[in-house]
Structures are given as C-alpha cells and as structure tokens.
C-alpha cells in the first residue's frame, strides 16, 4: 500500500561471538528522509553495511528488496550500480587528489582509455553547483575543510546517479553552519526525488529533518516512528533507544569505597591533527579506591582521548592540567611513567592496540611488566608461564594452555588477557576503555565479575562505555562527557539512562 523504495526483512548478521543484527526490518518510503537512531553498537552501521554490500549477500540472513526487486549485492559496486550510495563517517577521499579527481575516482571520465580532463572538471563543476559548493574542481581535497569535503562526498554520490543516499553521522565533525547547510542540501535532494537514510546521534537534528525514524537497540528493530503524526518527541526516541530492562546481567556488588586514588584537575587536551581544537577541556575528575566510576559520552565526546592523554600522553598535544595520586602530585609524561605511577589503560581496540596477536597468552600477559619476571635482563620463562597460568585459572581464560596464540581466542578471552596484562603491572588505577565491546553476554558477565573483584581489592576503576545499561549496572558513580567537557556527575542511586543521555547530549547542536 505504501510506496517503499527499500524493504529489508529479517536481517540477521552474526560475527564470531556476537549477533550484531537479529531479525531486523527496515522499510524506507520513496523520497523521504529516514533516520536510524540507536546507541553505539546497536547495529546501525552494520545494517547499512549489509545494505550497501560491504557484507556480501550470503554473509547474512534475510532479504533485501530495492524498488521491488530482490538484491544480492556481492560488493559495494553492485549496490552503487543500483543507485545505493553510502557515505561513511570517516570520509573516503584521497587527500592529495583534486576535488574533480575524487568525485570521479573509480568512475573516471575517459574516452578510449585516456582521461578527458576537460569533461571531468566541467562535470565536477556542475555537480559542485548542485551541492552548493563554490570551489574550483582542481583544488586539492586537503586544502578544503571537513564540511566542504562532506559536500564533495555528496557530489560524488550524485555523479553515480544516486537514488538512495546513506549518510553515517554526516554532521559529527561539522560545525553548526556547515551542519545547517548540509541538512538544507538533504532537503533539496529529497525534493529532487532522492531518498535519504541518515544515521545520527544528534536528536534535535533528527527531529528537524527526518520524515520517519527507525530505532535500533541491541541489534533488534524496536519501532519505526512516523514524524507526520506529530507525536514524536526527543524523549520518546531516547526511551526507545535505551529502554531495555536490566535483569541479572550484572553480578551483585557491595562497594567498599576508600580514599582518593587519582585526581585529575583542569585537564585540557588539544587535537594533534586539527590545530587549536580542544578535544578535552577543563576536566576535573576523582577516582577513589574500591570505586567503579563510569565515563559516559557519545562518539567523539573525547572519552578515549581523555583516558589516553592521562595515560602517558599517548594522545593529544598541548596537554595541560594536574594529576594527583593519593593526594600527591605526579607526572605521567610517558607510558613508563604512567605505569610506574600505577596507572593502567586497557584500550578499546584490543586487536590494534592491546595485544600482540601473533604471540601467545603468556607473552602478552607479561608484556607491560616483563622486568618483574626478569633478573639482570634475563626472563624466567617458567615463572612467566606460572603467572600467566594463574591468571588463566582465576579469570577463566578459555584456551588449551597459556602457550595458545591470542589471535585465535574469542573476543571475551582476548579481553581477559588484556586485563591480566594490566593487573600484572600492579596498577592501582585501571582505566578500562569499552571493556566489553564485541563480547557476548556470557563473557560480559565474567568481565563484570573481574572488575568487581578488582574494585574489592582496593583498585580504583574507570570504565568507559558506550552502553548506558552497562554503566548503570556496573558503576558506583558516573561522569558524563560531552564535547570534551564534564557535563554531569551522577551517583548510582540517582542514575537513570534518560538523565545521563541528557547530560551526554548537553552542549551539542
């Protein structure tokens, strides 16, 4: 009855250890702007990758039909042929090439094998006109700002005769003016008959532009809201995004909170790539012994940047602020200094930054504190085996032995190895960045148990997580970070998802 340009039915996508999408349905009407909302990790980007053929037909279950015809895309070129174009959050432009070259990258305007530069630049100019970008097509991409680069991406999509345009967080890196311009452009494209699917965290923006909204949560479709009914509010969307029951997904825990372990004062960090942009500004924070503190924030709020700048200045430039360990001022200018001062940081991306995947469990466990196992520069590898085997037992790392290569472990077991590695440094303060990302529910429970045990042994713990229920279930106190500033602090008793979400979106436009 309705004129749907796109129907996705029963989409299920499984990764090793996790079900990213489960029986997801999505219908998009012709010529509308359709927003997809959900927390980080709800499955939005995965769904769009299924749609655009990044995950080829056969690697997921369910059916996709576009314009009434079934789709079996084997790669992104297939979907582009049908007029489905996706623009990712991280722009896929070649910075050293010109605007025109980027627009026609992979689709070069050539005759008899030679590129026709006049035609390339003339058609690029026409497309730039359509997206309202006044730049010379021969300008190099790295010479224009992020906002304009976003427009170049859209021009590139238009050059491919786009019919369904997918934008993943298009305004995340843009300022107000550029965002407004982009939204206007999308409205204009809609009037030309181009259907848009937009993924956004910024609910005010979604309210302003969307014709309908589909909410995803934990890989499930929650509901599709029609904006025409006039009954949709931001609170309603938030409730849909976060509203799941907290059952026994968290082990019970009675905190015994002691004295102050780490205090961060007036902490400001500047971006190493964008000159003069403060990623973290004026943050004050206190962590106490035996306490599990949460740090909430949307993507790009500066959570990881804050943590890494504290941990031996591994992120950022022009870092200013003071650190106090048990009341005494300390310096942590290098990773070694941070470790010596009892600070540990377990990264959010364990495969890229946390583990040596080609080495075995024991050598990963010992990597950050090898000198503890060595005398005069020689490692006692039997002692190393014993230590690692103890962690394997106490943390229930499922592997045939500690000589198993970490690259072959499941996500949950890899995370346990990362935790063991940092516990072995005798850290008093553990910063755990997304400790349960990409881990199935059972393993999450085990990680929570380990975190509770660490707190009980007097460690101060800071948990960074995109999953609000996790923070609510685990933490004794939660800080909310928005655009690099602490916008709220909530005690366990007072914490609700709605309240934290409000703090997290404070100051965003």
């Amino acid at each position: 009855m309705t004129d749907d340009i796109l129907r996705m039915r029963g989409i299920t996508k499984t990764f090793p250890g996790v079900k990213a999408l489960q029986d997801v349905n999505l219908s998009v009407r012709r010529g509308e702007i359709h927003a997809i909302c959900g927390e980080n990790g709800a499955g939005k980007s995965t769904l769009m990758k299924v749609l655009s053929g990044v995950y080829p037909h056969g690697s997921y279950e369910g059916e996709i039909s576009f314009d009434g015809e079934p789709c079996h895309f084997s790669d992104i070129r297939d979907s582009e042929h049908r007029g489905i174009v996706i623009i990712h959050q991280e722009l896929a432009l070649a910075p050293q090439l010109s605007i025109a070259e980027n627009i026609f990258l992979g689709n070069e305007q050539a005759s008899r094998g030679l590129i026709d530069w006049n035609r390339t630049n003339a058609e690029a100019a026409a497309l730039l006109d359509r997206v309202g970008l006044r730049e010379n097509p021969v300008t190099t991409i790295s010479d224009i700002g992020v906002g304009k680069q976003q427009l170049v991406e859209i021009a590139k999509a238009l050059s491919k005769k786009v019919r369904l345009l997918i934008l993943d967080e298009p305004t995340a890196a843009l300022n107000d003016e550029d965002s407004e311009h982009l939204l206007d452009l999308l409205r204009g494209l809609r009037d030309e008959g181009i259907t848009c699917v937009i993924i956004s965290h910024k609910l005010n923006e979604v309210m302003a532009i969307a014709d309908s909204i589909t909410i995803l949560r934990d890989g499930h479709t929650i509901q599709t809201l029609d904006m025409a009914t006039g009954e949709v509010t931001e609170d309603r969307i938030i409730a849909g995004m976060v509203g799941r029951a907290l059952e026994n997904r968290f082990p019970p825990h009675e905190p015994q909170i002691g004295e102050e372990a780490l205090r961060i004062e007036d902490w400001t960090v500047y971006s190493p790539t964008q000159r003069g942009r403060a990623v973290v500004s004026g943050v004050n924070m206190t962590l106490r012994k035996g306490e599990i503190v949460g740090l909430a924030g949307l993507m790009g709020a500066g959570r990881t940047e804050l943590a890494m700048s504290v941990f031996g200045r591994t992120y950022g430039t022009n870092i200013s602020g003071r650190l106090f360990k048990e009341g005494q001022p300390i310096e942590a200018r290098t990773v070694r200094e941070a470790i010596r001062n009892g600070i540990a940081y377990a990264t959010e991306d364990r495969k890229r930054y946390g583990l040596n995947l080609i080495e075995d469990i024991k050598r990963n466990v010992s990597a950050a504190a090898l000198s503890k196992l060595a005398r005069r520069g020689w490692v006692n590898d039997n002692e190393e085996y014993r230590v690692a085997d103890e962690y394997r037992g106490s943390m229930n790392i499922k592997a045939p032995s500690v000589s198993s290569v970490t690259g072959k472990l499941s996500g949950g077991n890899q995370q346990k190895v990362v935790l063991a590695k940092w516990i072995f440094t005798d850290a008093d303060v553990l910063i755990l960045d997304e400790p349960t990302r990409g881990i199935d529910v059972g393993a999450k429970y085990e990680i929570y148990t380990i975190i509770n045990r660490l707190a009980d042994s007097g460690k101060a713990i800071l948990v960074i997580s995109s999953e609000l229920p996790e923070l609510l279930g685990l933490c004794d106190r939660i800080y909310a970070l928005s655009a690099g500033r602490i916008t709220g602090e909530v005690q366990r008793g007072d914490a609700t998802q709605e309240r934290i979400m409000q703090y997290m979106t404070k100051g965003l436009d």
Partner: protein
Amino acid sequence: MSSSTSPSDAALASGAKDAPAPGTPGRSSGLSINVRQSGIYIAFALIVLLFTILTDGALLQPQNISNIIVQNSYILILSIGMILIIIAGHIDLSVGSVVAVTGAIAAVLMVNYGVPWPLALLITLIAGALIGAWQGYWIAYFGIPAFIVTLAGMLLFRALTLTVLGNQGIGPFPDAVRTLSNGFTDGYLGNIGLGPLGGADLFSLLIGIVAVAGMAIAQWRSRAARLGYRQSVDSIPVFLLKVVVAAAVILFVVVQLARFKNLPWVLVLLAALVLGYSLVTNRAVFGRRIYAIGGNLQAALLSGIKVKSVIFWIFVNMGVLSAIAGIIFAGRLNQAGPTAGNSFELDAIAAAFIGGAAVQGGVGKVVGAVTGGLIMGVINNGMSLIGSPSERVMLVKGIVLLAAVAFDVWTKRRAASASR
C-alpha cells in the same frame, strides 16, 4: 520482548562456538605451528639428501663440509643480525657495504699503519658499532624508514670503502687474522684411529662430545624445570628422539671435520654467536622487546616499551656483526677489496626469510635464519659440485626464496581462515 530471550540465545550461541575451541583450533594450531617452525629443518634435511644423492655423496665428504661452513660463515653471521632487524619489522640493505668498509678499515690499520692485530680488530668492531649507531639514529629517533636509511647507507659506505682503499685492494693480512677466517684448531691431542674412517683429530672429537653432552644436559634440565612448574613437556621417547637426532647431526659433522683438518675457527665463532643470540632472543628482556615491537608496534608503545631505544640498539648490533663478517671475509681473501660484500645484504635477507621470518615482522628465530643461510649455501655448493652454471644456481635460489615466503603466507592464511 527480546531482552528476555537474547541472553540465553547468546549463551547458546557462544556455547556452540566455544565447544570446538579446545579441540579443533587447538590441535590444528599445534600442527600448523609445528609445520611452520620445523618445516625449514625438514626442507634443509631434504635438500642435503637430494644433493648427497646427486653428487654421489661428495656433498658430505669431510673437506666439502668444511668448505660449506667456511665459505658461508660471513653470510650466516650477517643473517643473525638481520633476523633481529626483520623480527622488529625493519630491513637493512647496507650490510654488504658495511662489510666492505669495515674490512677496509681493518686492512688499512694493520697493513698501512702497522697497528697490532688485536687493537685493529677492536677498532674495526667499534667502527661497525658507530656505523650501526648512525643508521639507528636516523631510523629510530628521526623516523626515516629503514629501507631508505640503509639504501643511503649502501651507497655511503661503499663510497667510504673506495675512499679508504684508494680504489685498490689492500693486503696481505697478519697470520692470526687469516687463521681466524680460514684456519683450523690445532691438533693439540694428536690423532686417533676411527677404524674404517681413518685417522681423526682427538681434540675436535672431544669438543664435539662435550658439545653433545652439554646440549643433552641443558635440554634435560630445561625439561625438568618445566615439569617442576607443571607445564606440558614432550614425552620421554619423543624427548630422547629429538636429543639423539640432534646429537647424531652434531657428531656426524664433527667427525667429518675431525677427519679433514680439525674444527674451522669460524665454526667455533659461529657456534658461540648462534648460542648467544638464541639465548638473547628467547630469554632476555631485550630479545622479547624485539618480538613485541614487531608483533604489534602500537601495543608495544602502549605497554611502555622503549621502542626507539630497542630499534637503535639492534642496528648497532647489526653494525658490529657486519664488522665481524667484514674482518672474516677480508681475512679469507687475504685482502680488502673495493667490491667486497657486494649483494651480501640480499643473501642475508634471503636467509632470514627462508628461515621462517615473517614479512610483517614479529616472527623469526636465529637458528632459523642460520638454517636458511645454510640452505642457500648447500644449494650453491651442491650445484657447483654437479657443474651447474651460475645462472641456474641463481634461478634455484630465487625459486627457493619465493617458495619459502609463499609457504609462510599460505600457512598464515590457512590459520586465519580456520579461526574464522
């Protein structure tokens, strides 16, 4: 609605996924690691066997074994330094030129300036260390890729060689240096009859027996220590088999050498280097750092490892080993020449990769690299014994290198798809 079912679903799913984990991947990984690690030794044994047959046993004649060791000693020494650099994820293209320039420095000091040979060798080793420090500085602290720095070094140090030598060969070397590179241990204890094998040097045989006994005792003690920590070890028959095979190989080589002219001094030096560097890579904190850096640079940085300092020192080490190789090479030819060491870097790199190093770093063993070097040495020697022209030798070496790395890539891809 779904939240009540999803945990149990996930638990089921994870249970199903975990179930085969202890069995299948564990076993297959054990197998693939074994193939990857021991493949090189099996290949070496097969190549030796092949050329023994093709040459009617000439390959394993006493004098020929001695020749293989002496002729390849400098490449083997270079491959020890090179494997450390490759494990760390770098490369060194300059070693051939460094061999030339250090040989030239030694020659000029001893021949032109009459410096006593021990002092001259010491100065040469220091010069090698300084050259390594120079390259290490640009790579580690300035951040220029090793490929570029050492490519520049290849030209720079060749130029320096020509300057030092004034474009001509300098020699002859003092006897002591020539003995080190070319000579043999004295028959301190006289000869002993070995029945049908004829006479053999008693001292060499004793050294061989001591080496075998030392190896067996060290292996046994290591096994006992591991048992004390309740680690899994080879069963007694497997353990004995390994020790007996290793002992037989060592004794065979030593007996053959003792029948010819005693032990070559470079073999003694080489054995010490292999032993020492194997210990460093397996057991020393410094050695472990190299693997950590090559395995995942970012993780190493975030673990507080002083990456720059480690990289700097492995290039200093390469410089010193190049100087040792330079002295031995020049001493063997009895003169330092302008073209000394040409393309040695390629042989050393090939040895490391044939010996099981991974292209992206993090993997490799000193013994593997030396075995890789010996494989090329045996191919060289065996093919020249059967009178193959040099272009065919090159062809075979190229194919062996490609096959070795292809095998490495293939086993890794298979392992990756198995874990999916």
